[in-house]
């Protein structure tokens, strides 16, 4: 049996501690830079059009603030609902990954994500946009950018 069919219980996600989230939104800034073409903060914001989107959202109801992004569920409803196969849980990393190439922007995922963690990306055609855990980096950009250690990676493997 080929390994690809094996399902994983591995789960990795970024978690926010609302007690020390200060609502600065530097996580959003870092996310935009990490998903920009240039990876340069000034160019990403001031020169790249359309600007990259943040996949993390800081929710606010002052004084409460907290960052929220895809929870990379064990059994992601978005992947169940995705009719193109663009959203899949990656068995290697446990990350719920999105293939922009395949996505047509039908918003089934937006409809079913109980965290509201999927955004609409209307920049070039339409497609969903979501946290990819910055798998190519040592640490998700938002986590690295949080000035108050309010964001951290939680990993469980079971």
């Amino acid at each position, binding site marked *: 049996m080929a390994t690809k069919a094996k399902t994983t219980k591995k789960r990795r996600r970024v978690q926010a501690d609302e007690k020390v989230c200060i609502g600065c939104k530097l996580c959003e800034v870092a996310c935009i830079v990490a998903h920009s073409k240039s990876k340069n903060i000034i160019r990403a914001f001031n020169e790249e059009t359309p600007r990259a989107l943040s996949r993390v959202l800081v929710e*606010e*109801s002052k004084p409460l603030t907290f960052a929220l992004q895809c929870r990379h569920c064990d059994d992601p*409803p978005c992947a169940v609902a995705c009719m193109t196969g663009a959203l899949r849980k990656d068995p290697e990393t446990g990350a719920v990954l999105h293939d922009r190439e395949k996505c047509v922007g*039908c918003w089934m*995922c937006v409809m079913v*994500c109980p965290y509201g963690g999927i955004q609409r990306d209307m920049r070039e055609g339409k497609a969903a946009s979501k946290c990819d855990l910055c798998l190519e980096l040592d640490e998700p950009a938002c986590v690295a950018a949080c000035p108050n250690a309010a964001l951290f990676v939680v990993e469980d493997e079971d």
Partner: protein
Amino acid sequence: MDYVIIGNSAAGIGAVEGIRQVDQTGSIAIISDEPHHTYSRPLISYYLGGKVEQHNMYFRPKTFYRDYDVEPMLGNPVTVIDAAGHTVTVAGKKIKYGKLLVATGGSPFVPPIENLAGSDVFTFTKWDDAKALAKAAEKAERAVVIGGGLIGLKATEGLLNLGLNVTVVELADRVLSTILDEKASQIFGTHLKSLGVTLITGDTAAAVNRDGEGSVTGVTLKGGNTVEADVVVVAIGVVPNTVLADTAKVKKERGIIVDEHLMTSAKDIYAAGDCVETFDILRHIRRPQPIWPNAYEQGRTAGINMAGQPLAYKGSFGMNSIEVKGLPTITVGMYDAVGPEYEILAKSDAESLTYKKVIIHNDRLVGAVFVNDIDRAGIMTGLIKDQVNVKAFKHDLISDNFGYAVFPEALRKERLSS
């Protein structure tokens, strides 16, 4: 074969993935009369409109059958199921099964319309339909779409993208009458008209008009008017396809009846997807709920059960996300409930064509409608699914920046902790 799956779409693929979660070695065959590698049915309108190319039509990678060790048998229908003998017949050949899944989907409902048979008339549920329609559309300028439901409007979008003039004929007094409430329908109608679509409601086709060579020239409506057109798309609706299941004499009503493990009345025969009827947990009735996520989920659950791990399917509820050239719209659950027992909170803005509505019953959300502003709609779906008491924050439900920040602390923590 340990497992035979009939239907190579959402439910069928779900079943393969479900079986392999439990059983990595049992033999699986997947059979479909459609010749294609598993593809995404809802994408056929995008394909028609040139928005999705061939290689992006596939629901799973080309290596899927190999990766999951599945034998695909594509291009021929299964004609008979022999429940007693545990065999199915395909292309005259009998295949023995340990467990069988019927995932035959739905069939387009075609009402009696005069002169329907012949060229230039299409239903719109299969990739090949889209291919044929695309070909016909090449030399066409005007199209008539009979049926203003989801499939009809998705076909309309495809045709608009090809530059055709489209007339939609809908028997009800509004489009999408089975998935949108009146207000949302109205907004949608306005939007369609702004796209140049001619909308005829309260009428339907009586006859297809053809010229001497048999080519379509238009349709004549029940009301007497005629609409000129070069192609006709019939998209009145889809009904559970139970033709094959009937050969095994499984119980059915509107769709095949299954128990909570998705087994039919016949031992070792399971069914899932658009061909079955399942429990609607909001409306408390059994009914077909033909949407992609339900089909996949049922298929996967059936697969897990077939592989010997009992897993109950609790039922589901209706939801739809539909967008026709802009105007994203989402409806969830009992979007249309009315009556004194329901509390309805809504707001709309005519200019921006936005509309938000939630329906509350016993402090629980039972339905929601979002037009144009659909961001974070899934939070609402989650609240409906888990029947969360929303009393404490119900007035925030339709606020512009609705999110977890408005939840009471304990509930927020509970829902975000997982």
